[in-house]
């Protein structure tokens, strides 16, 4: 088996719900409930799900922005949660995060050149003399110009700000980039530019991505393997082609059929799910999807389905498959 870049095993993250006068813990929001992901070098794993599915929490827990409840996160074979603060700091440049709203992750009073370069200085990866040059290099590879270096964030458009966000992650030469909805706030024409940028950077630098998104069409374009999450649990994982050609879980099928296609008057069979996503603080028993599943049986209401291999690395958690 080839060396995996990132191995996440049975990751769980529960947030306590406190209430009452004594602020006692009265329950847990199971934001991430037993999720496993492996990403090889240069691979792109797409994590798909609707709001509240826990996909962002997975990303944040991997880089230890929040602590896990249980499970294991290994990066290049090293247990991320077993590191002393000093060692963790050394590892940080290897894994970088990119967020949805680049404006709120940039300090409005810091010139973008400084914002991009500061991480290099902070990690002692370059000295002051060479920083400007390094920043200009990375700006160029993100499709920005050298003169942008002395500008402030408000002088940029949304697409350009996302390029700055990418440049800031890229300058540390990471092996893995965790991108949390990086194109969701952008207009279609700009979104296509950024998707292409992600792709080109991967080809030239051999980057691996964990690409978190709610948009299946974007994920299909970028990702080699895809995982679908629902209420904190992974319901299906498969290679891209397999998932789109042969979706097995009813939720994946519904999700695929719900995406509007830009072909007018197209008659297609659509699975319209009833009702809302239940609250993750009080998820349904048994299979979490049974309340909205058009095929639910008695068993689905009682037993939690196993997440098992349905053949050829296509994993699914459903009693009916």
């Amino acid at each position: 088996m080839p060396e995996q870049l990132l191995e996440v095993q049975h990751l769980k993250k529960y947030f306590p719900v406190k209430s009452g006068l004594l602020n006692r813990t009265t329950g847990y929001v199971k934001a991430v409930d037993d999720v496993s992901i492996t990403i090889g070098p240069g691979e792109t794993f797409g994590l798909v799900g609707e709001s509240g599915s826990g996909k962002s929490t997975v990303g944040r827990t991997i880089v230890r922005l929040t602590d896990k409840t249980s499970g294991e996160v290994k990066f290049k074979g090293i247990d991320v949660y077993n590191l002393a603060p000093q060692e963790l700091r050394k590892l940080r440049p290897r894994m970088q995060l990119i967020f949805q709203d680049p404006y709120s992750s940039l300090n409005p009073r810091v010139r973008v050149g400084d914002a991009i370069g500061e991480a290099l200085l902070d990690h002692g990866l370059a000295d002051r003399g060479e920083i400007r040059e390094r920043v200009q290099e990375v700006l160029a590879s993100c499709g920005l110009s050298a003169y942008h270096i002395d500008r402030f964030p408000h002088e940029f458009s949304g697409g350009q700000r996302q390029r700055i966000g990418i440049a800031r992650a890229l300058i540390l030469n990471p092996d893995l980039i965790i991108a949390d909805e990086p194109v969701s706030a952008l207009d279609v024409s700009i979104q296509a530019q950024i998707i292409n940028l992600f792709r080109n950077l991967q080809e030239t630098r051999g980057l691996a991505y964990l690409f978190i998104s709610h948009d299946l069409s974007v994920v299909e374009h970028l990702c080699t393997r895809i995982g679908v999450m629902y209420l904190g649990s992974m319901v299906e994982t498969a290679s891209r082609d397999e998932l789109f050609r042969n979706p097995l879980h009813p939720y994946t099928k519904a999700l695929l059929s719900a995406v509007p296609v830009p072909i007018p008057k197209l008659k297609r069979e659509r699975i319209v799910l009833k009702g809302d996503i239940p609250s993750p603080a009080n998820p349904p028993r048994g299979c979490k999807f049974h309340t909205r599943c058009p095929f639910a049986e008695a068993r689905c209401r009682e037993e939690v389905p196993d997440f098992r291999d349905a053949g050829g690395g296509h994993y699914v958690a459903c009693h009916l498959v």
Partner: protein
Amino acid sequence: MNDLLNIEHLSTHFKTEEGTIKAVDDISLHVRKGETVCIVGESGCGKSITAMSIMGLIEGPAGKVAGGSIHFDGRDLTKLNRHELRHLRGNEIAMIFQEPMSSLNPVITIGEQIVEPLRVHLNLSRRDAHTRAIELIEQVGISRPEQIFRSYPHELSGGMLQRIMIAIAISCNPKLLIADEPTTALDVTIQAQILDLLRRFKEDSDMSILLITHDLGVVAEMADYVIVMYSGKIVEEGEVTQLFANPKHPYTQGLLRSKPVINQRQDELYSIPGQVPNPLELQPSCYFHDRCEHCMAVCRMEEPNLKKVGEQQKAACWLYEEAKVYA
């Protein structure tokens, strides 16, 4: 003519310290009875300002409808006084917005908010209004209507709130529903429910819909007629199947090509280079010229007119004009 809404040469301008922004610049559009017209475009193209101009929601002194007329059912909305407009809004023209959470009052129950327009516009008694409100909640597909009636907005999910907004919007049987990005903030499975709901109401009631969106998928699913806007101008319009099958304007072509579509993967997505021009720096020209592959000398000097390019299709592009040679 059976136009319900007839907008001619509408311009809406905003004064800023740096100059006047022509957010909507001389656009004309028509919505017929029972028709769904979609305005599609990217942020800043003026699609929402068009809707707000129709509703008389442009706030002075900075913003102003600078010219043109908006005829609705025979009346010019730009000439109505506050009182007449107030009667029209909610009653004959209803509007729903992108963020249902911020359009509902957080300290008033859902029920009260549905009842209010029924009492004001339809003069229903308290009891009749209550009965009608419960019916409406059921109509938009929410179970346990009595309980929802007593709930506050924060107790409901985004999808439920958007259903409530639709219930309020249709409560007075409007002739026109203006929906400004009604599903943008919602998850896809919820979006599918809401679009279904809107389609059903339109079929049942002969209501017209003016739908504003940035999502070409939503357009294809809902529209009878499509209007593409760019930098405050209409660059192309047409019957939906024609426009999608044979887009004429390079911007429309680019938009359609740059949208990733499931099961139609390309190695490299097409992308329109550059970005939307600064609205303060617009010169007489085709506003799309610096992003256009087919840009000619004339495109930089003069504005193209919206011309017929197909049976039910118009485009504003010099490619389809008589050759005009500039040295």
